[in-house]
């Protein structure tokens, strides 16, 4: 079946390059999904199993923190986009 980049009801597919603690990996998701949906796969692909997804935060190339609960379409990403996934600071001080 020809792939027009869309999945029925989910919108256009976006190709994410997710840099996890400095290591890049590729994750695909659709515009109708929440941004946080890309986190578990990115962690799995890079072998980062020590901390649950909620302990990680996503940022764009400018370092701006992104709200994972927002739908991907709300960010108006281009078809290919690079994001940075890092552990939160956690307990400290």
């Amino acid at each position, binding site marked *: 079946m020809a792939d027009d980049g869309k999945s029925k009801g989910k919108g256009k597919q976006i190709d994410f390059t997710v*840099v*996890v*603690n*400095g*290591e*890049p990996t590729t994750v695909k998701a659709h515009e109708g999904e929440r941004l946080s949906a890309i986190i578990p796969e990115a962690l799995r692909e890079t072998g*980062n*199993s*020590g*901390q649950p997804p909620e*302990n990680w935060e996503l*940022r764009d*190339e*400018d*370092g701006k*923190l992104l709200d994972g609960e927002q739908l991907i379409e709300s960010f108006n990403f281009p078809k290919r986009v*690079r994001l*940075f996934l*890092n*552990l939160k*600071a*956690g*307990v*400290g*001080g």
Partner: protein
Amino acid sequence: MATQSVDPAVSRAKFERQVASFRELEADYSRRGWFLACANFPKILVLLAAPQLQPAPLVTGVRFDFTDYDLHPPSVKLVNPFSGEPWSADQLPTRLMRRTEVEAQMMPGMNLPPGFEPAKMVQDQPLIQDYPGEDPFLCIAGVREYHDHPAHSGDAWELHRSSGAGGIIRLLEVIDTYGLRPLTGFNVQLETRITGFSQAEVPA
């Protein structure tokens, strides 16, 4: 001071991997004001600027020491970017303040109604800690000084090693988030001095 007990080849290989992870996206990090100035095993020096300010200041250096990595996490200290010397507590350009919510302390023995929830208090907490006679250090999991401190004996490095908590990119992200990105301008102190008198007109 940390000593090398792991086979140096292992630590060096993991050190090189850390450096490579930075070099791979060096252009992106440069735009954010991160510059890898020096990488000679076991130490890495990264310089951090605040590009959102004009003129953009070079705020601090960060020195990582990967001795005995990753049996032990890296040491992380904020340093003078020009001399490479650790900042003393009174010289720190930033203490990486973080706002957290804590529950208000209740008086012991108070009779509270069922379902009562203590109020939440907001407090600003520095992620850079210092103690007399010691260099200030970044006090979060993934940092040698944090895990070596007796107050954190219940939060062993082994619990965090596999999560990448000791990675340089992740640690730089924390320092940038709480120390550089929040900067919005410069504090300026002016001193006024009387230099004479003003005069409306010169009489004929």
